[in-house]
């Protein structure tokens, strides 16, 4: 049973922004329901190796937030849950939620026996399909809740029965069904975040044709010691170490043909990834950053200055025109003109990382409730949105620092709505 009232705040999306908004509101004593579409909280930051500018590990910040969550009775977390419909108005919404079955109940101790027992494998979403996972799995090591999930594709197959038989805790329940819940809610914080722009759409870069052209989110996964390459920078074509790496900025951002906005974090992400190359190879690595202009702002400018001083990192002022492949070596060859001096180049590199941008994870036309958005699908702060507030990358392409600030601001806005609801109910209670 999930109980909610018009003094409850619903937070949609359990990434760093949703977690922050939920915790800030809950720690102010408000009643919060946090829903997440995936089987685990954490969102995209759990898929990053390190954070700019401090180069600390995101797992650390995530752990702090999960501790806050565990210590707070005001937040209820629902995973595998999405919003199906919203009706009503400020302080008085009716929200319909759809909860997909996990097929694993809370007896699960994450022992992993079910994962051992099943056979079918599927592309691992956490690793952007760079490796496979079993049909019974823990989404990733730090997953919260620490509970396995059965992939719905194995239900009604032998694998499902094998998993059930293998579980020593009787945690597997193959009869779980999709549920629909209707809740009364006072304010909604929308924190469904971003998704990487589809690199296949940038035809001249050949992401779909050349194995050694990858994206920045895939590069992050490569550095993960538990990731698809065990933390090594390996070329997808031949598994060889790649030491000469090109980064292409604005791959699909600031582009009338793709995302019109500046995704803002990609410059910093590539600068950060250049430090990964140095970390791995020392003076032997080579990073070449092809850029239109480097947008590293305020305190982050120091980070840029530091990377710029590294002799293994070079900067080429040019939007790469196209990529071809040298068949003999498998090296992608970058073609373009360096606008500093107008030199034409055809540069081979061992690996190319496309610094693709962020787009809102919920497409404009699929948003379940009418809200005011900009041309790029980011939700604007607008009075006509009532008590629906965007947080983090739902509001704009933001880094974690700004996403968290933004989430705290939306928690405050939601709290104000709830306080108004509480005050008017107290007043009408006093009258009656």
């Amino acid at each position, binding site marked *: 049973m999930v109980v909610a009232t018009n003094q409850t705040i619903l937070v949609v999306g359990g990434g760093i922004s949703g977690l922050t908004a939920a915790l800030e509101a809950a720690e102010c004593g408000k009643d919060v329901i946090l829903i997440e579409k995936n089987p685990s909280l954490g969102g995209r930051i759990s898929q990053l190796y390190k954070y700019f500018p401090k180069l600390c590990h995101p797992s650390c910040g995530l752990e702090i937030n999960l501790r806050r969550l565990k210590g707070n009775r005001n937040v209820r977390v629902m995973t595998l849950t999405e919003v199906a419909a919203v009706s009503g108005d400020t302080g008085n919404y009716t929200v319909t939620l759809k909860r997909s079955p996990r097929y694993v109940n809370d007896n699960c101790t994450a022992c992993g026996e079910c994962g051992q027992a099943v056979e079918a494998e599927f592309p691992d979403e956490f690793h952007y399909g760079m490796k496979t996972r079993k049909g019974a799995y823990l989404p990733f090591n730090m997953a919260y809740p620490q509970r396995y999930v059965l992939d719905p594709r194995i239900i009604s197959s032998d694998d499902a029965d094998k998993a059930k038989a293998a579980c020593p805790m009787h945690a597997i329940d193959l009869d779980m069904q999709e549920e629909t819940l209707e809740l009364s809610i006072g304010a909604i914080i929308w924190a469904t975040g971003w998704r990487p722009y589809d690199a296949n759409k940038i035809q*001249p870069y050949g992401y779909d044709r050349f194995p050694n052209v990858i994206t920045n989110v895939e590069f992050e996964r490569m550095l993960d010691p538990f990731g698809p390459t065990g933390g090594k920078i390996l070329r997808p074509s031949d598994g060889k170490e790649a030491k000469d790496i090109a980064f292409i900025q604005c791959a699909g951002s600031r582009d*009338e*043909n793709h995302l019109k906005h500046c995704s803002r974090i990609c410059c910093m992400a590539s600068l950060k990834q250049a430090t990964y190359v140095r970390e791995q190879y020392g003076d032997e690595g080579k990073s070449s950053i092809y850029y239109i202009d480097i947008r590293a702002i305020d305190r982050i400018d120091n980070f840029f200055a530091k990377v710029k001083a590294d002799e293994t990192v070079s900067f080429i002022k040019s*939007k*790469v*025109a196209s990529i071809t492949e040298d068949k003999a070596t498998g090296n992608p060859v970058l073609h373009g*003109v360096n606008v500093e001096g107008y030199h*034409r180049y055809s540069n081979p590199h061992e690996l190319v990382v496309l610094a693709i941008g962020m787009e809102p994870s919920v497409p404009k036309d699929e948003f379940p409730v009418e809200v005011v958005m900009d041309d790029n699908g980011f939700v604007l702060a607008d009075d006509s949105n009532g008590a629906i507030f965007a947080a983090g990358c739902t509001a704009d392409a933001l880094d974690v620092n700004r996403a968290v600030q933004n989430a705290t601001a939306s928690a405050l806005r939601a709290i104000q709505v709830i306080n108004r609801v509480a005050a008017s109910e107290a007043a009408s209670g006093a009258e009656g």
Partner: protein
Amino acid sequence: MSDMSNAVVEKYHNDFLKEVEAHVEDGEWVKMCMQCGVCAGSCPLGDHWAHPPQELFMMIRAGKREEVLTSDSMWMCTSCYNCIVRCPRGLPITHIMHGLAHYAHRLGLAPEKQPTRVFAKLFWDNITKNGRANELKMGLSLYFKDGFGNGIKEAMKNRPLGQAMMKAKRLNPMEFFGGHGVKDKSGLHAMLAKAREIEDAKLEQGK
């Protein structure tokens, strides 16, 4: 420099960007260029340009009027549209190149011997004469553009092609004696003259 050219220089006080915006087809787009260089990198003839498009745009903003208008760069454009397709700001680069070339031509600043310009002039004279293209004469005038001797050589070299085209009825030898045309030739000429008058008036407004 022609009188017309002097007039526009005076009007725009050497603000060449403003001049381009006012008089070059699609010139108002020039300021939108963010110097990413993807046009230059995408141009199949890029090696042959003294100044690729994004450099021309920067030169326009820097007021390098003489260098831009006398350049043969924009005449190198073959209208493949690669640059337009890839430009992240959606600039109609191909059209701007043609606009610049045309403007330089009208002001009498374009390089005299630039082959694309020579071809364009021949074609214009050819098609405006009768209101229809005379392909036979077009071919011949191209052969003879570098003098009589060269013309004979070119014509001989291309004889088999010409004969094959005649056989296939793609080329009519009778076109040599005047050729076909529109019904009201003098009406056409009057129309073209009027159009030129209007265009010239626009340019000379600055006087």
